[in-house]
C-alpha cells in the first residue's frame, strides 16, 4: 500500500525521468552515439537509483541493470532507451496502485484512505 509521502516521491521521480528522457531524446536524434557527459550522467544515475528503490525487484525493467557505468561511456541513445524503459515501469507501478473512487475519479490507493487524484492508467487512456 502507498503512503502520501511515497506518492509525492513517485510523482517527483516521474517528472524528473520524463525531463531526462525529453532532453536526451533531443540530443539522441542529433548525435545518437555521442557520449553523455559526467555531469548529466551523475544526475541520471541518482534518479535511476531512487527509481530502483521505489520500484523494487518486481517492477524494475531489467534485473541486471541498476545504473550506468561512467567508464563504459553510455551514449545519448543508451540513456534515452533506459529512461523510456523506466518510464514504462513507473507507469505499470502507477497503474497497479490507482483505483476508481466511488465518485468515479481515479485515485492512488493510499493506506489511510486519503484520496489523491491520479490520471487513469495509460492503457485505459488509449
Amino acid at each position, binding site marked *: 500500500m502507498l503512503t502520501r509521502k511515497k506518492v509525492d516521491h513517485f510523482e517527483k521521480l516521474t517528472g524528473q525521468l520524463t525531463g531526462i528522457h525529453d532532453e536526451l531524446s533531443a540530443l539522441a536524434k542529433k*548525435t545518437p*552515439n*555521442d*557520449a*553523455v*557527459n*559526467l555531469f548529466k550522467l551523475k544526475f541520471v544515475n541518482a534518479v535511476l537509483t531512487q527509481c530502483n528503490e521505489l520500484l523494487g525487484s518486481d517492477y524494475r525493467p531489467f534485473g541486471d541493470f541498476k545504473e550506468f*557505468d561512467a*567508464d*563504459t*561511456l553510455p551514449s545519448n541513445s543508451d540513456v534515452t532507451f533506459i529512461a523510456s524503459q523506466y518510464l514504462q515501469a513507473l507507469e505499470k507501478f502507477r497503474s497497479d496502485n490507482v483505483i476508481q473512487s466511488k465518485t468515479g475519479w481515479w485515485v492512488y490507493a493510499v493506506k489511510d484512505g486519503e484520496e489523491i487524484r491520479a490520471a487513469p492508467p495509460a492503457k485505459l487512456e488509449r
Partner: protein
Amino acid sequence: MYVDPFLLWKSPSQQDKALHLAMLNSFNHLGFLAKSGKAEEAISQLVLASECDEVGLGVSARREGRRIGREQAQEILDLFRSVPEYDQRGFHHFEEIQFYVDGISKDRISDFSCNFIKSFLIDFTIDQSEALGIPLSDCVVSSYYDPERHSFISDFPARLPVNPDTGFPLLLVPKRWLRFGPWISFEEYFKAYCPRDEIFNPGEPPERVRVLNYNRNHYGVVETYIREKERTAADCHTDPLFTQIPVLSAKRKIKQIENLPSGNVAAADRRYEETAVQLLSSLLYPHLDFASAQSRTDSGVQIRDLIFYNNRSHPFLAELFAEYGSKQLVMELKNVRDIEREHINQLNRYMADELGRFGVLVTRHELNRARRQNAVDLWSGQRKCIITVTDVDLGQMVELFESKQRSPLDVLKKKYVEFRRDCPA
C-alpha cells in the same frame, strides 16, 4: 618553430630582457666593427652567426643548414651606413634586417638569436639535462659568442647531450621563446603595412625586392610598423609545440579511414597509418603527448608504429602507469581485415620494460573469438594488456572530440574496462 627575439624583448623576466640586450649589443657591435675598418672581421662573425645547427630549429631534415654568403653579410652590414638611424643608434630589433636584405627570414633571425646567446643556451641545456636526467657526453661546440671579447670562440669543449646517431651536440631552447614566425615579420609588413601605391606602378607585379629597396630610403615606414608591433606586444604569444587538427579535419580523416580498403592495395596500409597517426595524436592530446610515429628501438630492429609519452595527467593514465609500468604508450596500427596471432605477438614483443605492459592495437574490426582469447591469455599469464581500437571506436572518439561531452581518451578507458571484464577475476 623558431626563436623569436621579440618574445625575449617583451618578456617580463629580467633575464630574458638582458639576453635580448646582449643579443642587440653583439649585433650592433658588428656595425661598429664594420664602421671602424674591421669589415672583414664583422663579415666573418656574421657568417658564423648565421647558422646554429646545435639548436636545429627549422625545416631541414638533417638539422644542418647553410650559412649566408659573404656578399649577403656585407649587405647586412651596409645597413649600418645606408640607414642613418641605424648608423646613429644601431638596431632596437635586429629582426628589422628582414625589411632590407633579400633572403633573410625567420630561420636566419632565429639562428642569429641563438648564436649570440649560445653561451646561455649551453648553461640552460646542462641545467635542464641534469634536472631531467638526459645523458651528457663530452663534445665540442663548433663556435660560441663571447660577449666579453665580442667575438666567436671556436671549438669549445663542453658536456652536452648528443645526437646518438651522429654524436653531434644538441642545445635546448626555452619553450617560451618559440613561435612559428617572428612577431616582426616581413610577410605581414608586405601584405598589410607597406604603401603599395607608392612602391608599385598600377598593374606592376608586387616584387619583394622593390619593397626592400623602398624601405632603405623610407625608414619612417618601417619605424611606424615596428612601433605598431611594440604597441600590440601583449598579443604576441609563444606558439604551442603541437596543435590539434580542427574538428572538420578530424571528421574528414575518419571518413578517409572508413573508405580505405583493408590490406595493402594501392598503399592503403601506409595511408591508413598516416591518417590514423594524425588523428590519434590530435584526439588524445593533451593527455597523451609527444606522439612519435615509426619509432625505432635502440637496436633499430623493431619499429613501433606510434608511441605516446604518458604524462599521467588523467586518472586512467596514472592507473596504466601504476599497474603496467607504462611510461610510454605503444600503439600498433594494422590495416588488416582480421588480426592474426602474429600481430598480437608482434605488439607483445614491443611491450618491454621501458614501454610497460600495456599496448593498443589499432585496426579495422574487433578481434575474433580466438584472438580475443589470445589477448586474455596474455593478461592471465603475463599481466600484459592489449586492447583493440577499431574504426567504430575512432568514429566515437571523433564524435567526442567534436561534442566535447567527454574526452576521447575515455574511449580507450572504455575498451580497457571491457577487456578487463573478459579477463578472469
